[in-house]
């Protein structure tokens, strides 16, 4: 397989931008009309995702150790969309037609052969990973909402009970889908450490115009079902190499994974001093402060500080969470979670203040996380 030829031809094709995935999906749906229903009505995000994933695979095609874990994750994750091994040939066909269309005269039998081989390898890795995963876990979990509390205007705390054993670690998140908004998945962090009764807590903020978050906050009711994908993300989990005291900075519903970590330390130890700074725009948005204050009263090692940025009547600390947090930084590992803007600004301030990069823990933003568009 001539990997350089693959890369070169992909770069040529990729120059046509959005035209490429547009053509690809049109071919796929015309050849396989039944596949159309597996996708949301709007395909704009989907097209971006496809090109990003393809680009990532093609540019690493000669570094198997890089590309295989990525493909395995992709294959496992696609189970929740109802993708089976039978769908892969159709996608391969549409991909080859698309390449042929955009490459014109450059589409030689040799190149067609190389792409076919490469695609078959990719499909094989994804299918195998999906099959392996299907032996140990369902394509998604069903979770019944057992409580839905509106904590303030636009923020709800939802507790749901999963139908099977659900392995996850505090600090992880999962993609969530709700029947009222079919085929739309968004990532949410768990706000609790694993429990005996197999329930999870989600802190959901209504994003302005957010399709799923609005439905979850305003529409979801006790007794309704959510779909939950497998738990993912390692960056906010407590790995063994994170020793000693912790400083946590939470913005808005970014409090969720921090609360999960605090619970984990309370249940499993080892106890260490934890300073949790909760940032919000106004005191009304400190939607879970009471529960955390209660935990702080029970655990002498836990210190919770609410900080409010846009509320002249707030009697506590005013300003940005990171500034208050930095006053208490004595070399601890720092965990940060919040909106994308908040995380970027906070990490920037931490670096400026001399906190070493390897001591700052925050989630990578994917296009699906914490943001709806």
């Amino acid at each position: 397989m001539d990997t350089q030829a693959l890369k070169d031809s992909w770069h040529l094709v990729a120059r046509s931008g959005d035209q490429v995935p547009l053509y690809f999906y049109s071919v796929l749906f015309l050849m396989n009309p039944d596949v159309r229903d597996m996708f949301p009505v709007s395909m704009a995000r989907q097209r971006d995702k496809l090109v990003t994933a393809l680009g990532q695979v093609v540019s690493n095609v000669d570094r198997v150790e890089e590309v295989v874990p990525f493909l395995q994750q992709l294959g496992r994750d696609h189970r929740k969309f109802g993708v089976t091994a039978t769908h892969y040939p159709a996608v391969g066909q549409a991909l080859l037609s698309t390449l042929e269309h955009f490459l014109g005269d450059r589409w030689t039998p040799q190149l067609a052969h190389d792409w076919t081989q490469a695609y078959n390898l990719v499909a094989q890795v994804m299918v195998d990973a999906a099959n392996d995963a299907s032996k140990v876990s369902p394509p998604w979990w069903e979770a019944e909402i057992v409580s839905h509390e509106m904590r303030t205007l636009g923020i709800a705390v939802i507790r749901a009970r999963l139908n099977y054993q659900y392995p996850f670690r505090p600090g992880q998140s999962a993609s969530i889908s709700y029947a009222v908004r079919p085929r739309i998945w968004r990532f949410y962090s768990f706000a609790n450490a694993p429990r005996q009764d197999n329930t999870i807590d989600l802190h959901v903020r209504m994003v302005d115009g957010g399709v799923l978050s609005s439905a979850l906050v305003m529409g979801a009711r006790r007794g309704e079902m959510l779909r939950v994908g497998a738990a993912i993300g390692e960056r906010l989990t407590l790995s063994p190499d994170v020793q000693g005291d912790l400083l946590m900075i939470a913005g808005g519903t970014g409090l969720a994974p921090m609360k999960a970590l605090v619970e984990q330390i309370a249940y499993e130890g080892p106890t260490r001093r934890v300073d949790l700074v909760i940032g919000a725009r106004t005191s009304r948005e400190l939607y879970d402060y009471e529960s955390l204050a209660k935990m702080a009263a029970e655990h002498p090692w836990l210190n919770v500080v609410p900080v409010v940025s846009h509320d002249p009547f707030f009697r506590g600390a005013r300003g940005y969470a990171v500034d208050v947090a930095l006053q208490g930084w004595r070399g601890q590992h720092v965990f940060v979670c919040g909106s994308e803007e908040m995380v970027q600004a906070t990490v920037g301030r931490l670096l400026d203040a001399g906190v070493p990069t390897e001591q700052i823990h925050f989630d990578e933003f994917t296009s699906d996380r914490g943001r709806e568009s």
Partner: protein
Amino acid sequence: MTAEMPWGSPAAERQPLTPDRVRKQEFTRTSLGRRGYSEDEVRAFLYRVAEDMAASDKEKADLRAYIDRMKQWYKEHGLNPEQSAAPQTLSVDAINILSRAQQTADAQIAEAEDYARRIVGQARQQYEELLLEAQRQAEEAANQAVGAYRAAGNGLQSAEAEELERRIAYLRTFADVTQVQLRAVLEGLAHEVDKLGHVPDQAKQLAGGSPSPSVYG
């Protein structure tokens, strides 16, 4: 509009209901203070919806039977209908038409979502301003109450009583200001709800779901 009496005309002679027509169905409002719709009209309409559902159920059953007969025919002739034929070559025009349709749909959805985002954003901003104003006025009233309490005093005031005066004045003013604002909001909401014809639970949550501001610290 006037109510059509479905039992007055045989089902075959009228246009079947489409989802779009069901969604856009309008009912005459009863004259009693514009609350609710004419019951006869709603009944008649539901009757029609049921008719059409029954008709389409029957059609589905017929189609299923037809498919079964087809499958049987294939089987008798040693063919497998599930195996799709060799991939047909697609016309470039078909691909383009579908691509363009998809782009149109994407643009319209993006526009709708953007509109929703702006509307909700504005609403939230307005709500924050109202609340801030209520807090400001309440704070002012509380300070005045304390001033008045001190002025009226004869050296016997206690700090607790003063704090109580402050809080009573704060809450009273806060309640007054927000009540006026909420009533305006609720009237607008009631008007919208009247248009909908049934009260969604969300409206109740909106009105009662936000707790009074508590001050931590």
